[in-house]
């Protein structure tokens, strides 16, 4: 039977894992198309590692089905599954040199010595580290180990490669570089990657599709842009990217726009984006710091339907990602606003008065009580 080109490389159907009474993974279904980079993004303890360990075969699901290239694999032990895993701390074999590390899986397949040597050299070339065959694991840098760990799996040509927060142990600069490199490696090997992380920027930069996971369920599956611009749940709005949040009561709904009176009495315009909020409902409104325009005078923000004036209480200078905290003149909580670095606001200081404004469509509204506990995302940047 010829392989169906539309058949997803990995499919989970109603996957559930219970530990005693606690559902770590609760009825999760998803499909990963062949050759794509799929990320599962969620805070620690949301069940993402449990999903990964079930796919790898180290955990037995309580119920549900896992299919790889259309074939159910639940009865297949981990060493026979066509998936390989890059572990959080890489788990390279410290007792072997690089060549033996990469050749380990091939030796298990009973491949000949010459063939193994040829394949190892080829994959080392591919990851840009030719000639390190006889080096020891501890002689490599963090980024090199990373690439060797991927090569060790890729040499086996798995249908799906699982990556469990492999960048967590690297320093920031290297992590930034490895993000780009991982994406390039995925394209070069043309293999399906399933990547697990709690770091939204890793997921946003690398993935074709991202599933945001919380408390054992998928909140939303979509592209990075969809999650960022059109979060479907309050959790996604709060977790992906940074955000300002106000709670209040819906006053008026008009098509896909609404007006909401915050607890401090400020009237704001937002958009429910089809979430069916009605007048009188308690709701929360989420606005990203970078969706807010800043100006020195009222004329600069005239075009927007939400306008405010405030004074700078804190300047959070961070190069391109600089922000200010603004105390609105009308009272209420401080607002976090991105500060453009085009030079216009270079001399902004604490106490300066600024005008801010944003379009009503940028204010994502959700029914109250469905979002994460804090207004700003737990893992910023």
């Amino acid at each position, binding site marked *: 039977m010829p392989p169906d080109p539309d058949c997803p490389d990995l499919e989970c159907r109603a996957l559930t894992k219970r530990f005693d009474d606690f559902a770590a993974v609760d009825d999760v279904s998803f499909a990963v198309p062949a050759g794509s980079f799929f990320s599962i993004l969620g805070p620690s303890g949301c069940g993402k590692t449990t999903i990964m360990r079930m796919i*790898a*075969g*180290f955990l037995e699901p309580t119920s549900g089905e896992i299919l790889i290239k259309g074939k159910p694999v639940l009865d297949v*032990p*981990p*060493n*026979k599954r066509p998936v*390989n*895993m890059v*572990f*959080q*701390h890489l*788990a*390279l*074999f*410290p*007792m*072997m040199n690089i060549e033996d590390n990469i050749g*380990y*899986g091939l030796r*298990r*397949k009973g491949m000949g010595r010459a063939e193994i040597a040829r394949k190892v050299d080829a994959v080392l070339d591919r990851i840009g580290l030719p000639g390190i065959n006889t080096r020891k694991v501890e002689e490599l840098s963090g980024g090199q180990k990373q690439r060797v760990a991927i090569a*060790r*799996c890729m040499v*086996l040509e798995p249908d799906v490669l699982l990556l469990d927060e492999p960048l967590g142990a690297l320093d920031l600069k290297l992590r930034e570089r490895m993000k780009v490199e991982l994406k390039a490696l995925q394209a070069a090997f043309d293999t399906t990657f399933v990547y697990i992380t709690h770091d939204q920027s890793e997921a946003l930069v690398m993935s074709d599709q991202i599933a945001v996971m919380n408390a054992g369920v998928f909140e939303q599956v979509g592209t990075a842009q969809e999650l960022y611009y059109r979060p479907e749940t309050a959790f996604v709005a709060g977790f992906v990217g940074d955000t300002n949040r106000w709670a209040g009561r819906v006053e008026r709904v008009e098509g896909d726009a609404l007006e909401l009176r915050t607890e401090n009495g400020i009237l704001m315009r937002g958009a429910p984006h089809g979430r069916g909020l009605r007048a009188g409902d308690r709701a929360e409104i989420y606005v990203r710091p970078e969706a807010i325009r800043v100006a020195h005078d009222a004329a600069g923000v005239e075009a927007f339907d939400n306008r405010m004036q405030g004074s700078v209480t804190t300047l959070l200078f961070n190069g391109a990602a600089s922000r200010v905290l603004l105390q609105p003149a009308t009272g209420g909580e401080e607002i976090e606003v991105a500060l453009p670095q085009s030079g216009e606001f270079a001399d902004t200081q604490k106490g300066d008065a600024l005008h801010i404004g944003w379009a009503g469509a940028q204010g994502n509204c959700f029914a109250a009580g469905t979002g994460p506990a804090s207004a700003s995302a737990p893992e910023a940047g």
Partner: protein
Amino acid sequence: MRASTKLGFILLLTPLLLWLSLLIIIPHIDMFLVSIRERVGVREYETSAANYLTFFQEPLYLRTFLRTAVMSVLATLITLIIAFPVSYYIAKIAKGRLQAVLFVLCLIPFYVSELVRTFGWMILLRETGLFSNLLQWAGLADRPVEMLYNDAAIMIGLVYTSMLFMVVPLVTTMESLDDAVIEAGYDLGGNGLSVMREIVIPHATPGIVSGSIVVFMLSLGNYLTPTMLGGKDSLWFTELIYSQFIVRFNWELGAAFGFLLLLLSSLIVWGMLRLTGQTLKETMG
């Protein structure tokens, strides 16, 4: 300042130096000197290799010597074979409380003195002992069975006595192996056997070697267990040394025996390190 740190260094080193020189180096030099003299008359001695020649000319001595070496190596191997799965279970499979409890269970027999422990085995193994009675009661033997005073009894005693000294280093080295490394071994296609052979055992090698060295030396130099469980039919080399010194008052021959035992254990430990490609520094450090 420098003078005072130097003084401190010397003061700290003094107990160690005293220990080494008074208890180890000086007695050994003296023993060596005793071993190379020959009594030619009353209080008349000559330097000669006669004691060593006696050893090689008397088959009983030579045979006991080799038997002790082979039995000690065997005891070490058996201890390793029993202790390895036990340690693997404690270090990698048992979790939390169970792990601590199992470890303590290995330790508990050592709260009792070796003499009492060995008597315990005698109670079990002697003609009127527990096993003998059990066999008779079950109808498997029609008269009392003597299980003491043979090589198997010695082996049981030695393995039992040494177990902890193998389990401790093995558990320590195996605990330092990341679980993810074992999982990676399976994930990349390995089965239980190959993961054991290529990952767990190479990682545990320093523990295996250091445990083996300790167990081997303890077995080779053990006096109590072979004497009590082996009796007269199963001689141990330490018994020969004891009888030369205490029974026969032939300190010269006894010293020569002692020196030969030291050479033997050094040789076997060196060979063991060479064989496994380990250095003493790696193993003990």
